[in-house]
């Protein structure tokens, strides 16, 4: 497993920030659960295995056992009857809650489009937990997701990883122990947004200069703190922006870099090298297939769409096989949504890649491809020790599908988060509805 080895570097970085009492802590607690034996299904474990006629035992909110002919006395048994079981689906790229529905101006909280670098903003302070998109995503099997600031800015701010459980507060959704991310964006968006305002950056070279200046400032601030500590002087005033950037330099905050073009990704790897940080994942990496070898060598994940292309110039060379070619080259492939509808069907998006790869003569087993929306996604978010696969001891984030999730006809039957049934297609009491949809005709319920 050469990929696993390449991953070690990233896993080592994925430790939570512990420098001081963390502000804005998670208050998430799992919903009530019981011990459940899922019996007689086709299990995609997320570790690369497919088990026919397999069972999954969920106990105390964790995966207790995965295998065949599991026995457990006095527990609730769910007869799968050939249904499929996968780990909970994880989307590494979402704006749910920050750009909620209805998509009115009053709900537009994704881009702090007032300066090209805004590392001081935290997307969790934009997230409206009543966005109906969370529960429709849940009906699509999404158990965890990263909410990112938008791509208007070179450095857009901190991301947050959430458990996809309904909650009155964003803190109640925050994935405990998940590291923060930093959203960066290269290419057309920042240069268009700020170029149109008549200020830098208005070119790709302006973009790179903007990144470098931000990191130079961060290093300078870091040195000042170091010096003050050394001399016992008072520390400089707290600087929200530089604190976040230093978190990246210290390996505590993971970089998620929106970047379409292959050549720009290579340049961004050079920027990372210059300042001593790591790019955890390129997002919207439409041209990643052109540098799959480089991305494999540098252990950078690429989060890609199945088939979005041509909506802008830097997306013109999109191909359906992108994720498959990355995987074949030994690089980390992830399928993401960036879309409140697409997030409901990441299984189908993955299936489209597998289908296109098959047409090109590349056969990717379903047990492998499912990792693109489970374990690999968890790795990119630094939560793979806790979730992303069906392994004993991990959180029981599990999806039961009525049929092969790579079929267009498959629907989720049940979704578990930390062992709790958070969605059940055949039980209306397990079909959450957000406040917005109350009394105004919003349908919900898996429709």
């Amino acid at each position, binding site marked *: 497993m050469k990929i696993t080895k390449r991953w070690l570097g990233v896993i080592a970085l994925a430790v939570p920030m512990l420098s001081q009492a963390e502000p804005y802590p998670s208050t998430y607690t799992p919903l009530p659960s019981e011990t459940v034996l899922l019996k007689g299904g086709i299990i995609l474990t997320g570790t690369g295995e497919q088990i026919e006629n397999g069972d999954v035992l969920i106990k105390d909110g964790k995966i207790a056992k995965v295998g065949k002919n599991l026995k457990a006395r006095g527990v609730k048994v769910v007869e799968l009857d050939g249904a499929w079981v996968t780990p909970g689906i994880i989307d590494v790229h979402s704006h749910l809650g920050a750009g909620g*529905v*209805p*998509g*009115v101006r009053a709900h537009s909280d994704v881009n702090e489009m007032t300066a090209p670098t805004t590392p001081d903003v935290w997307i969790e302070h934009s997230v409206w937990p009543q966005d*109906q*998109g969370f529960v*429709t995503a849940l009906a699509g099997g999404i158990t965890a997701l990263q909410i990112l600031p938008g791509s208007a800015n070179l450095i857009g701010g901190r991301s947050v990883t959430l458990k996809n459980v309904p909650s009155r507060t964003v803190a109640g959704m925050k994935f405990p122990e998940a590291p923060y991310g930093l959203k960066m964006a290269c290419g*057309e968006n920042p240069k268009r947004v700020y170029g149109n305002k008549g200020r830098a950056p208005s070119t790709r070279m302006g973009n790179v200069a903007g990144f470098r200046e931000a990191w130079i400032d961060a290093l300078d601030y870091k040195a000042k703190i170091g010096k003050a500590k050394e001399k016992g002087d008072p520390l400089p005033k707290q600087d929200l922006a530089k604190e976040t950037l230093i978190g990246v330099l210290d390996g505590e905050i993971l970089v998620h870099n929106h970047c379409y073009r292959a050549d720009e990704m290579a340049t961004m790897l050079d920027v990372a090298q210059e300042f001593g940080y790591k790019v955890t994942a390129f997002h919207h990496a439409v041209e990643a*297939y*052109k*540098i*799959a*070898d480089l991305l494999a060598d540098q252990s950078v994940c690429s989060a890609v769409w199945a*088939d*979005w*292309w*041509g*909506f*802008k*110039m830097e*997306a*013109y*060379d*999109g*191909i*359906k*096989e992108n994720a498959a*070619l990355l995987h074949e*080259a030994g690089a980390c492939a992830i399928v993401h949504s960036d*879309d*409140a*509808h*697409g997030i*409901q*069907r990441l299984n*189908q998006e993955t*299936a*489209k890649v*597998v*289908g296109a790869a*098959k*047409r*090109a003569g590349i056969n990717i087993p379903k047990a492998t491809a499912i990792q693109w929306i489970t374990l690999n996604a968890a790795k990119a978010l630094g939560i793979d020790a806790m979730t992303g696969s069906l392994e004993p001891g991990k959180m029981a984030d599990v999806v039961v599908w009525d049929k092969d999730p*790579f*079929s*267009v*006809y*498959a*629907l989720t039957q049940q979704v578990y988060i930390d062992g709790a049934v958070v969605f059940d297609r055949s039980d209306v009491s397990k079909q959450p509805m957000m406040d*917005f*949809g109350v009394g*105004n*005709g*919003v*349908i919900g319920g898996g*429709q």
Partner: protein
Amino acid sequence: MKTKVILGLSLAAAVVSSWSMAQPLAITGANIVSSEGVIQEGVTIIVDQGTIQAIGDNIPVTDDMDLVDAQGRWVTSGFVAASGNLGLEEVGAVGDSVDTRTKHEQLTAAFEVADAFNAASTLIPVARTDGITSALIMPSLSNDGDEGAYDRIFAGTAALADLSGQLDSIRVRTAGVVAYLGDRGKDAAGGSRAAALAGLRAALEAGKLYNESGAASKRFALPESLEGAPFSAEDVRQFALVAKGDLPLIVHADRVADIAQAIKIQQQFGIRVVIIGGAEAWKVAAQLADANIGVILNGENNLPVSFDHLGARLDSAAILSRAGVEIAFSGENATTHNARNMRQVAGLAVAHGLEWGQAIRALSRSAAGLLGLDADVGQLRAGAIADVVVWDGDPLELDTYPSHVLIKGEVMDLSNRQTKLRDRYLDLKSELPPAYR
């Protein structure tokens, strides 16, 4: 023995494309869905001179025919993209490459997108590779990267084009006039949907006046009562066609109140109406069926993305179809560049209760039939244009692709810019850069 067997690969298709017009072609062993939605197995289809000459289970195949043995695989009429801008835009956010809308003051309804159709667009082979053989191409009010206000409710006139990539691709120049009600019509009309409806009625009144004045042969001037109306004499000629029932009115509407208004207007003016969008159309499914109004449905939306979409749901297609409403599929991610995803959207509708045969019908006959264009397009029927697709599996499944695509009887090449880019980067280890491949 002149019969050649055509292999199910794009290379073979490329090789044979030059002669395929020259002699008849037989597809044998086809499983088909009839236009009534009935499955028939082991069917033979004879294609010659660009049309389907014969179809049935006892059709003789002669030695002079080229042969495609479908071996029991699905064969459908080529799918028809029911919305979007194929051939009208290359890169959405690059205005230089987009011809889907105009701010020209004299051209609202009279803006005919057929004249802008670019048969050489790279989007066309991409759609064709997924079994789409023709497309309704629609004018629109705005597009990605172009957020400017368009102060009109009429976007222009839609057309039907085939996806052969040939210069003579336009099949129907004027297929329907596109109007916006709902939230976009409201903005275009100055802030209220009531104003959008008033504008629509005024336009239809003008069309009626034009027809009553017998003005078709001479230059028509707007009557005094319509002075200051936001349309020109050229537009009125188009409204006249709608008012006469010669051209359908394609109405963007999602809120049930707007759809109900469209039904009223259809009855008041005796025109033909098609709804596009249709988030809440399911609420008036019976009325739509009674009025014979079809819906080009955004089949992927189930979110209250605006206050017009509160009742959006994934089983809309099933509800409408059961009530007898003719439907076709569209969607934000199933149009233009990704028109190919309308198969996925149809599959999703099946997962949510639509009959499979009806889904196939929605993708083929209905998409053309909603506008009254299904006489020759979208059907496997003797006499129809030979747009035929042989699939390597269930046409709605995510890993299914066509093995053969025929447009006007001609076997199409199944490569496209994307398959070529893919092949260029399959092997990253060669000494020379990809630019030499």
